[in-house]
């Protein structure tokens, strides 16, 4: 299998050339039957690389599992109040958590909130937070980074110095201050992380663009009268966007951890909201069980945090794999 890959490896360039030659000559498909389109071929190669690594498979399975939980949440855990599904149902107000039972398969939190329900609906919440923050950061980061990298000069100076300032304050602490200023709640957490997260992406894409900007084909495009917008959109971004997407895929896990940490500190949602970080924070007083069974409340401490860790692990494994496969510097190793 690996030998086969190697031959594809070496053959790619030759294949590309022959495909191009065939296209120029106007003949039909190239001599090498497999060469459909160089891009498709590269994608096939990438996928093969992805699937070869067992860690990637584990990451993929974890994320798909969470996607499944999020997608089928209403079926897996039918909300008693469909108009507000993120409120965890609870059977009574007894403070002491109850162990796993037929009624609550994973046990309950203090005040009898069903852990399984919280885990399932919390998945939607985690995806919402992770994707919203990373998508917004990507958008802002790519916009500012390409402005700074492509135009250079005063744009570059201003944008990058602002990025330096944002970089100077640790994100966890700064987001705490911002959340306090905006009023606590998950919305504030998401806003704070959106406001603070962009510099990472800006730096990455700027340094990519700095390299590409002065390449011959860009000069050629400029000489042939392409507008700045066209050069950026058609020639520069397609060649540099991957680096930030890789960063983005690796940042989803980090984002969810920071959001959970803020929730854990009590800056997120109110008790009873299906948010993993908040669920962990309710367990702080239940670390030590009664004298006869010290680990009596293990499920309260273990399960919500384990779900966060699993979610983040999935993204990290996937991010690592995506980097190894799509980063041209790592790709052919």
């Amino acid at each position, binding site marked *: 299998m690996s030998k086969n890959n190697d031959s594809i490896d070496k053959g790619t360039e030759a294949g590309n050339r022959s495909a191009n030659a065939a296209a120029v000559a106007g003949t039909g498909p190239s001599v090498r039957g497999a060469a459909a389109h160089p891009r498709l071929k590269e994608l096939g190669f990438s996928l093969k690389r992805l699937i070869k690594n067992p*860690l990637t498979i584990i990451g993929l399975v974890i994320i798909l599992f969470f996607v499944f939980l999020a997608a089928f949440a209403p079926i897996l855990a039918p909300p008693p109040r469909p108009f507000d599904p993120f409120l965890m149902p609870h059977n009574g107000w007894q403070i002491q958590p109850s162990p796993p039972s037929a009624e609550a398969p994973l046990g309950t939190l203090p005040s009898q909130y069903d852990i399984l329900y919280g885990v399932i609906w919390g998945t939607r919440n985690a995806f919402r937070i992770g994707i919203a923050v990373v998508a917004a950061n990507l958008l802002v980061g790519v916009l500012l980074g390409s402005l700074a990298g492509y135009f250079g000069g005063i744009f570059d100076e201003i944008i990058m*110095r*602002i990025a*330096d*300032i*944002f970089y*100077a*304050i*640790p*994100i*966890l*602490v*700064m987001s*705490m*201050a*911002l*959340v*306090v*200023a*905006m009023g606590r709640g998950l919305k504030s957490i998401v806003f704070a992380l959106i406001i603070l997260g962009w510099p990472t992406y800006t730096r990455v894409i700027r340094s990519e663009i700095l390299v590409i900007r002065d390449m011959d084909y860009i000069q050629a495009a400029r000489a042939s009268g392409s507008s700045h917008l066209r050069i950026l959109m058609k020639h520069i971004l397609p060649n540099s966007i991957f680096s930030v997407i890789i960063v983005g895929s690796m940042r989803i*896990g980090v984002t969810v*951890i920071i959001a*959970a*940490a803020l929730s*854990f*500190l*009590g*800056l997120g949602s109110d008790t009873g909201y299906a948010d993993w970080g908040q669920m*962990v*924070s309710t*367990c*702080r007083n239940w*670390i*030590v*069980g009664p004298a006869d069974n*010290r*680990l009596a409340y*293990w499920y309260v*401490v*273990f399960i919500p*945090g*384990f779900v*966060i*860790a699993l979610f*983040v*692990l999935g993204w*990290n*494994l996937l991010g*690592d794999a995506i980097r190894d496969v799509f980063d041209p510097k790592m790709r052919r190793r």
Partner: protein
Amino acid sequence: MSLFNYILRRLLFMVLVLFGVSILVFGVLMLIPPGMRVAAYVTSEKIPPNQIEAMIEAYGLNDPAPVQYFRWLGNIFRGDFGFSATAEAPVVQGFKTYFPTTLELVLFSAPLVILVGIWFGTAGAVNKDKPVDHGIRLFAIIGYSLPTFWLGLLLLMFFYGYLGIFPPGTLSNEGKDVIFSPEWNRITGLLTIDGILNWRWEIVWDALYHLMLPTINLIILSSALIMRLMRSSMLEAMGQDYIRTALAKGADRKTLYYLHARRNAMLPVITISGILLAGMLAGMVITETIFTRKGIGWWMARAALQLDVPAIMFNVLFLGIVFVVINLIVDLVYAAIDPRIRLG
């Protein structure tokens, strides 16, 4: 460019960044309504509600933003950060109370974190693709993914709850009796060092006993970063021509890898160690909250819940300054070690 010029340029840059940081922090401050911000100017514990309006007027909290900014900056330069409700003291006083606890944990755990990271990273690179390497990589990626607060709670549940050892906090009750007694001299505020200076070894032991769990927590979580970097940097160093040449000439593999290659591979680790140290300080918000160690992180977490604005702003500013200074030091050390940096 000479080293002197380089340092000068970096210092100037640092001042600019700090100026920007102060504007940023002030911007956050301005998001808070004047009624809450007034706390920053109060020096006693309680203000009667009917005086708030008058105080907003007196301190000009409805003035245009630039006017307020320079007034705020002036106060800061005079060392006046306001009154912290959570510390029940002026902010600077609160900082003096809480910071040694934080410093003690950082000083105690950071060298261990870095050592473990370098050691494991090297072992992974030398045994590349062997079971040891796989194990280390797995450990690193798990450490990377675990939420601090969860690992801390699990450690507490197992060691403190189940085994009954390593309790949270900074001292046992007997230890607290000692340090609150009149014969105790608070010199540095760091319990271990003060314990030695006071010649009370039971306090040193007690403090170390309480430091164990947070340190284990930090090692598992933070060394992953160094481990990964050290591994890849070591792999690169091991592939260099001079190593291959030496190997071909029959040099001892162990000496080569552990002496020559490792020394060259450590360069990037220096950079990341600075960032790691700063990150650990910021992470104290979580670590100290879990292990109920009353340091600045614990203070800040409490301040955030009780809307103690002066304490939050002070700590954000403090950590910002620490970040900038650590980055400067890292850059300078780097320039001193690697002359290519300055020439570039």
